[in-house]
C-alpha cells in the first residue's frame, strides 16, 4: 500500500507537477508572453498568447522527413533525449526551501551537466542529418556552449560558496535546497552586494544558453537556414521547439532559485504564482528586451563577449565572496 502510494506520488511529480504537464504549460505560456512582448516593443500587434501551442499542434500533424543520408536512429532519438533530460531537470529545481519534488538525486553540478545534454542532443541530431548547414550550425552551437559554460560554472560556484559559508560547516554546499534555505533565512542573493555581478552575468548567460535572439548563432536562419534544425520537420522539430521553450522556463526558474529565492510563503500555490511572475520578469529582462533591440552577433563576438565581460563579472563576484563580503 505504502509503496503504491510512493510510486503514485512519484508518477504525479514526474507527469503532472512539477514535471511534464506543468513544465510544458508554463514553458508555452512563457514563450507566448515573450512573443507578445517583443511584438509590442516593435510596435506590432503580435500573435495570440497561445500561438506557440498552436504551432506545436500543427507540427504534430506534419509529415516526418528523414534525409536519405541521415542516421535514422540518432536523427529521431536526439530530440526525445534532449527534451526528456530537460524535463528531468525541471524536477530537480526546488520551488521553495521546503518543496523539492525529487530530493537527494542530484546537486548543482549535476544540474549543470544535465543542462548540457540538450545541447549535445541538438548537436548529435544535427550531425546525424548529414546536412552541411547543420554541420556549420552544430559547430557554432558548440562554440556557444564553450562560451557560456565557463562563466556559468563560476556563477554557480559563487552562489554555492556564498550559501555554504553560512549554511554548511565545510564552507561549501552543492544543494539547491540549501541555497533556497539560505535565502529564506538571510534574504535573497540579489540583495547581497557581492552577488550583483554574478546575477548580471547569469542574466547574460540565459539568452545564450536558450539560443535567444542576439546569441542565436547556431540557428541563424538568415545565414545558415536554421543551422542545427535545417533537416528537421514534423514531430522531431516540435520536440526541439518544445525543448527550446522548456529550456527558457528552466533557466529563468534556475535564476529565481539562485538569486530570488527568499520570497516564499510556504503555500505551494502562492509560491508557484510568484515563481511564474519572477520567470516572466527575468524572461523580459534577458530574452525579450535583447531580442527586440539587438541584431545578431557574429560567432567570434559571442565567444569574446562571454570570455571577457561576462567572465569578468562572474570572477569579480567569486573574488568578493571568497574575501567574505
Amino acid at each position: 500500500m505504502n509503496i503504491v502510494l510512493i510510486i503514485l506520488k512519484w508518477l504525479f511529480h514526474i507527469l503532472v507537477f512539477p514535471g511534464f504537464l506543468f513544465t510544458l504549460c508554463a514553458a508555452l505560456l512563457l514563450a507566448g508572453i515573450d512573443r507578445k512582448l517583443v511584438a509590442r516593443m516593435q510596435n506590432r500587434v503580435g500573435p495570440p498568447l497561445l500561438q506557440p501551442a498552436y504551432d506545436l499542434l500543427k507540427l504534430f500533424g506534419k509529415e516526418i522527413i528523414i534525409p536519405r543520408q541521415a542516421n535514422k536512429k540518432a536523427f529521431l532519438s536526439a530530440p526525445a533525449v534532449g527534451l526528456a533530460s530537460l524535463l528531468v531537470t525541471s524536477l530537480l529545481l526546488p520551488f521553495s526551501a521546503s518543496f523539492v519534488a525529487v530530493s537527494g538525486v542530484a546537486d548543482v553540478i549535476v544540474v549543470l551537466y544535465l543542462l548540457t545534454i540538450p545541447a549535445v542532443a541538438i548537436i548529435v541530431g544535427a550531425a546525424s542529418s548529414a546536412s552541411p548547414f547543420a554541420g556549420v550550425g552544430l559547430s557554432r552551437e558548440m562554440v556557444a556552449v564553450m562560451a557560456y559554460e565557463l562563466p556559468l560554472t563560476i556563477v554557480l560556484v559563487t552562489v554555492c560558496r556564498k550559501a555554504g559559508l553560512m549554511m554548511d560547516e565545510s564552507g561549501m554546499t552543492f544543494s539547491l535546497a540549501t541555497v533556497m534555505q539560505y535565502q529564506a533565512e538571510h534574504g535573497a542573493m540579489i540583495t547581497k552586494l557581492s552577488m550583483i555581478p554574478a546575477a548580471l552575468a547569469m542574466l547574460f548567460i540565459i539568452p545564450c544558453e536558450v539560443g535567444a535572439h542576439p546569441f542565436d548563432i547556431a540557428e541563424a536562419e538568415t545565414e545558415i537556414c536554421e543551422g542545427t534544425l535545417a533537416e528537421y520537420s514534423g514531430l522531431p522539430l516540435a520536440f526541439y521547439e518544445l525543448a527550446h521553450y522548456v529550456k527558457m522556463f528552466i533557466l529563468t526558474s534556475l535564476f529565481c532559485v539562485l538569486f530570488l529565492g527568499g520570497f516564499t510563503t510556504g503555500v505551494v500555490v502562492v509560491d508557484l504564482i510568484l515563481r511564474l511572475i519572477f520567470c516572466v520578469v527575468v524572461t523580459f529582462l534577458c530574452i525579450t528586451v535583447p531580442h527586440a533591440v539587438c541584431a545578431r552577433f557574429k560567432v567570434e563576438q559571442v565567444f569574446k563577449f562571454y570570455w571577457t565581460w561576462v567572465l569578468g563579472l562572474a570572477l569579480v563576484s567569486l573574488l568578493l565572496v571568497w574575501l567574505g563580503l
Partner: protein
Amino acid sequence: MMQHFPILSIMVLFFGAFLNGIFGGKNAKARKIIVLASIFLSFLMVVAMTGPVMLEGQIISYWLGNWEPAMGFAFGIGLEVDAVGLFFGLIISTAVLVSGLYSFEYMSHDDALGYYYTLYLMLGGGVLGLVFSGCLFNIFVMVEIMTFSAVALTAFRNEKYGALEAAFKYLVVGSIGSTSVLVGTILLYNQTHTLNLAQIASILPSVSNGVTAVAFGFLFVGFATKAFLFPFQPLAADAHAVAPSSISVLISGVLTKTGVYGIIRLVYVLYQSMNLGPVKTLVVFIGTLSMFICVTMALAQHDFKRLLAFHSISQVGYVITAVGLSTALGVAGGLYHAMNHTLFKSLLFLTAGAVLHQTDTTNLDELGGLSKRMPKTTVLFLIGAASISGLPPFNGFASKWMIYQATFEAAAAQNNFGFALVGIIEMLTSVLTLASFIKVTQSVFFGQMPKKWENVKEVGNGMIIPMGILAALCVITGVAPSAVEKYLLAPATSAVYSVGKYINAMMGEGFAEGVSLSSETVAVDLGRSGYWNPLAWLALLGILLFGAFVAFVLLRKEAKTKESEAAEMFGSVDEKFEPFFSGERAEFSQVGGSDMFWGFKKVMRPYLDFMHDAHSGVVNDYVRWAVECLALVLLYCVLCGL
C-alpha cells in the same frame, strides 16, 4: 597458495613472452594459445587477489627466495600487494586482456607478429611488476622493461610515416625519465641504505634533508615522464598516432597509470609529505597545467588518434590534480577517474583502431558518415565519448563529479582561492573535452560520407566484443558508483593513508610502531556535500523517454511517408529526401574536423599559435623542456625544504 600470486601473475606474462619468442614466430596457432593462456592466467590471479586484499583488508607480501628481513633490515627483493597496488593491478590486467583479445583480428594485416606479441607480453609483465613491486630498484627495472617494450611497439609499424621518429623521441625523452628515477633511487639508497619501499618509508621522515629533497624531485619528474604529464605531452601524441591501436590502449590506459601510481606511492607512502603545502601546490599545479594545455591541444588536432592522445594526458591531469588535493575524497576521486580513464580511453582507442583498420586513415578531414557503414562501432564510440566528456550517467561523470566535490571542498576548507580556480578549470576542461569529441563525432561517424568510403564494412566480432566489454564496464561503473566506492575505492584510499600497515606487512609486526607510526588501518570518510543518484535519475529519464517513444509511435503512424512509396509516386528520386542545399549543391561539402569551432579558434588564435610553435616536433626542444622542467622541480624541492 595466495601469497605466490603476485609473483606468478607477473611471471606468467614474462614466461609467455619467452615461450612466444621460441614457438610463436611462425606458428600462429601456438602463438594464440600462448598469448591467451598467459593473459588469462595473469588476469585470473590478479582478480583472485581482490578477495583478501580489497574485502578483508590484508596485504600480500612475498620475498623472492624467501629472503625475509633480518635484524630490521630488508636484504631480499620483495613484492607487496596492498589495495592501491591491486587497484592499479586490476586496471592494468583488464586493459592488457582486452588489448590482447582485440589484437588477434586487428593485427591480422601485419607481419612479424611473433615479435609483436613477445613485446606486448613484456610490456604487460613490466607494468604489472611495477605496481606489485615492494622495492624501489625493481620499480626502476620494470620502468625500463616497459619503456623499451613500448618504444619498440611504437615503431612496430615502421613502414608508416613518422613511426621511427616517434619511437626515437620516446626513447630519448623516456630515457631521461628512467634515468631520473634511477638517480632518485641512488640518492635515497645513499641516505637510507635500503631499497625496500616499506623500510624507506619508515626511515625517511627522520632523515629528511637536502639530499632526500633532491631525490624527491628526481623521482617525481621520472614518474611524471611515465605519465606524460606536462611538459612531456608531445611524446605521447607522436607515439599514439603511429602505434597500433591495441598498443595505444596500453600506452594510454596502462603506462600513464604507472606514472600516477608512482606519484601516489612517492608522495603518500615514501615521503608521507602530502600534508605539506609546497607538495600539494606542486602536484596540483602540474596536474592542472597538463589538464588544460592538453585539452586545448586536443581541440586543435585533426588526427583521430593524436586527439585521443592529448586527451589521455588531459584526463591523467585530472587524476593528478585530485590526488594532489590531499583529501580522502580527492584520492578516491582520482583513483576512480584513473580507472574510468583506462576504460573509456581504451574503448575510444579501439574504436579509432576499428576505423583505421577499415579505412586505413585516421585523418578527421578525410573521414565522414561512417555511422551508416559501421553502426556498432558508432554506438560504442558514442558511449566512450559520452563517458570521457562526463555526460551523466556514464562513468566519466561519476568520477569527475567526485573530483569537483573534492576540489571545491578542499578550496573551502583551506580557504584557498587557487583551488577554487583549479575547480573551475576542471569544469572548463570538461566542456572543451566535450567539444573535441563533438568534432570527432561529426567528422568521422556523422556528417556526409565521401564517395570513397561507400564500401566500408563493419569490423568483425573479434574487435566488437572487446570494445563491447569496455563499453559495458563504462556503463556499469557509471551507474553503480556506490558499489565501486565500497569495494574498490574505499579500500584503496584507506591503503594510501595506512602507511604503518604497509610497513608492518613487509618488515614484520611492530616495526612501524618502532618508528612511531600507527599500524592501524586508517578509516577514510568519503562523505561529501553533494548528491548524485544515477539509478533514480535513470528511472526518471527512462519514464520520460518511454513517453516520448509512445508519442513517436502513435503520431508517426499517420504522418510517415516511406521513401520507397514516395519513389513509386514521383519516379526514382524525390528531392525532399536530399539534404537541404538551398539550391546551390556544388558549393557545399562535408564540414570536416579542421572546419569546426571557427569562432573559438579565431579568438584563441594567439594562444593556439604559441602552442603550435612550442610543439615544434624537434626532439632537441623536448629534451630541453625535460631538462628545464627537471631543474625547476629540483630547485623548487630544495628551496621548499621538503
